């Protein structure tokens, strides 16, 4: 009954619905609603946990147990964030359910920022150069070298992590930013693959014109190719940055001191410092939120670019 009542309104909004109405659109609509509900559940499962993190971070530890299911923060309080940034004294922190151990997320945040920015800048730039050589230059052994580079994508990171750790250790670079960024600085197989695909699909006309005018390859690369590739470079930089921001295993091996830790590693330490029996949940969730914030900001600004890059196969 209700569907009959709303049908005219529906038709006004969607002129095509008339056709369906003639053939009986009730089963179709019913299916559509179910699809929406199911999709809504998937979206809720994906997104709601983030609210729960925020709600917990704004709660006070002592009140969490008694209000474990309240949708709003239990006893609203910013203490957890203060604790994470080392703004509470040990006594204050312990009184609020923290461990009292010194923890400074500003330092970790800074390290993560450095680590991700340096590796992204280096990997994207040098990989673009290599990709240009693979896509545009003609030299003996080009395709063989390219396959070799691509093949490294199949090697599990832990396999190279052990010898790389030994190398960095022998160079005396453990617990230094240089030691952390080195393996990512010069290239990533994915970045080379990504940029090569783009260069291959790029029109050569401008380059050829420049070449006839006598321009050298390095000039063509910096003045024509790179500016024209700004969009894919931005996408690649975003993806690389977020990947590096989330990296855990390598920084865990190489950066273990308070001064060299990145956020992900710091989070793990913060969790393991939790006092026995009653973990500092609000502090932990505040720390988690702090770690997630830069990526969330990037996502808010570049969401469309990021979403559209998924499923990229090089043809677009």
């Amino acid at each position, binding site marked *: 009954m209700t569907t009959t009542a709303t049908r005219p309104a529906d038709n006004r909004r969607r002129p095509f619905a008339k056709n369906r109405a003639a053939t009986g659109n009730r089963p179709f609509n019913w299916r*559509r609603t179910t*699809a929406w509900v*199911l999709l809504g559940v*998937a*979206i809720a*499962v*994906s*997104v709601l*946990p983030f609210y*729960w993190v925020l709600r*917990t971070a704004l709660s006070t530890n002592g009140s*969490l*147990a008694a209000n474990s299911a309240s949708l709003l923060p239990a006893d609203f309080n910013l203490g957890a964030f203060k604790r994470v940034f080392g703004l509470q004294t040990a006594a204050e922190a312990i009184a609020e359910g923290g461990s009292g151990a010194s923890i400074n997320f500003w330092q970790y945040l800074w390290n993560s920022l450095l680590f991700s920015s340096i590796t992204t800048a280096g990997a994207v730039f*040098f990989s673009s*150069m*290599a990709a240009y*050589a693979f896509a545009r*230059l*003609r*030299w*003996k052994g080009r395709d063989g070298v390219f396959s070799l580079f691509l093949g490294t994508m*199949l090697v599990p990171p*832990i*396999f*190279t992590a*052990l*010898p790389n750790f*030994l*190398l960095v250790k022998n160079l005396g670079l453990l617990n230094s930013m240089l030691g952390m960024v080195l*393996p990512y600085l010069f*290239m990533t*197989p994915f970045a*080379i693959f990504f940029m090569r695909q783009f260069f291959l699909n*790029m029109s*050569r*006309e401008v380059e050829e014109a420049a070449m*006839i005018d006598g321009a*050298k390859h390095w000039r063509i690369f910096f003045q024509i190719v790179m500016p024209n590739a700004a969009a894919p470079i931005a996408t690649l930089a975003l993806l690389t940055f*977020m990947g590096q*921001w989330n*990296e*855990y295993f390598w920084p*865990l*091996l190489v950066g273990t001191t308070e001064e060299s830790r990145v956020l992900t590693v710091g*989070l793990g330490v913060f*969790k393991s410092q939790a006092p026995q029996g009653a973990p500092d*949940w609000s502090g*932990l*969730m505040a720390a*988690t939120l702090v770690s*997630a914030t830069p990526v*969330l900001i990037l*996502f808010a600004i570049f969401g*469309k670019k*990021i*979403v*559209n890059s*998924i*499923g990229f*196969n090089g043809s677009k």
Partner: protein
Amino acid sequence: MTTLTKQPDPGLSAGGPQKLRKRGKPAADFRGTGDLKTALFFIAPAMLGFVLFYLVPTIRGIYLSFTEYSILGDPEWIGTRNYERIAKDPLFWNALGVTSQYVIINIALQTILALGIALLMHRVAKSTFVRGALLMPYLMANVIAALLWFWMLDYQIGIVNQLIEWLGMPRVAFFGSEQWAIPTQALINTWRHMGYTALLIFAGLQAIPNNVYEAASIDGSKAVSTFWRITLPLLRPVLVLVLVVTVIGSFQVFDTVAVTTAGGPVNATRVLQFYIYQRAFNEQDFGYGSALAVILFLILALVAFIQMKFLRGNQSDLD
């Protein structure tokens, strides 16, 4: 004019330049001899990184797997002894079993859910907003996903156990019980990857031409049989690719385990990569750790090979 200059354009296909050279007529814009010198300049930094941090470590890793090496001193060649030890190491077999269990649960759940979500999206919602919301968990670090669920699944005051109790069921020790620890890890990673995988499959769905569906509906095909007989077969190349990538990734589970259960309770979540980490870095047994890493590498190569071969991932039925 433009068509004339465009026709011999070697950039249109990868095989172009070679073909042109064979004809002995280098295009006007190229200096026939090749660009090796320039190429060396362009490739030098990447090559340095490749040799230092990929190629040499790969060879060194294989070499170390045949040695006894405890960081101090020099590696000592011991032939295949590490591998013989692995064959008799109950912790290795446990790790392999636990990891396989994890991979099976993770991949089965993730792929089915992702396929479902992709089909739903294909049907009702293609907006960037929906895709963005589904992608959010994937953008978070494994560590963040792990801690988030460590809190939500807490036995005492986690919200999920609250809900379970409201439904009249007994609380579940998600991380604390041997029986639940691995499924819980699989669930966390499923949560993180399901939207991303859905977007990959969704991209594959959009590549299926509409006229195929139209033809099917004219022939009176029902939705269910359209799915089994048209959508799924045409989606196969994408699905295989997604499966290969996710299975390989899944075998290397480490972060979520390291942050939450650290291999426990007992050995319930001592997955392969965590076991390698413990042997190499906690016990300083680099030779043994390297041998374990070689085994993991071989397993991954084998799994990828089998998947590509039996699911014919590199062939499309769309032609």
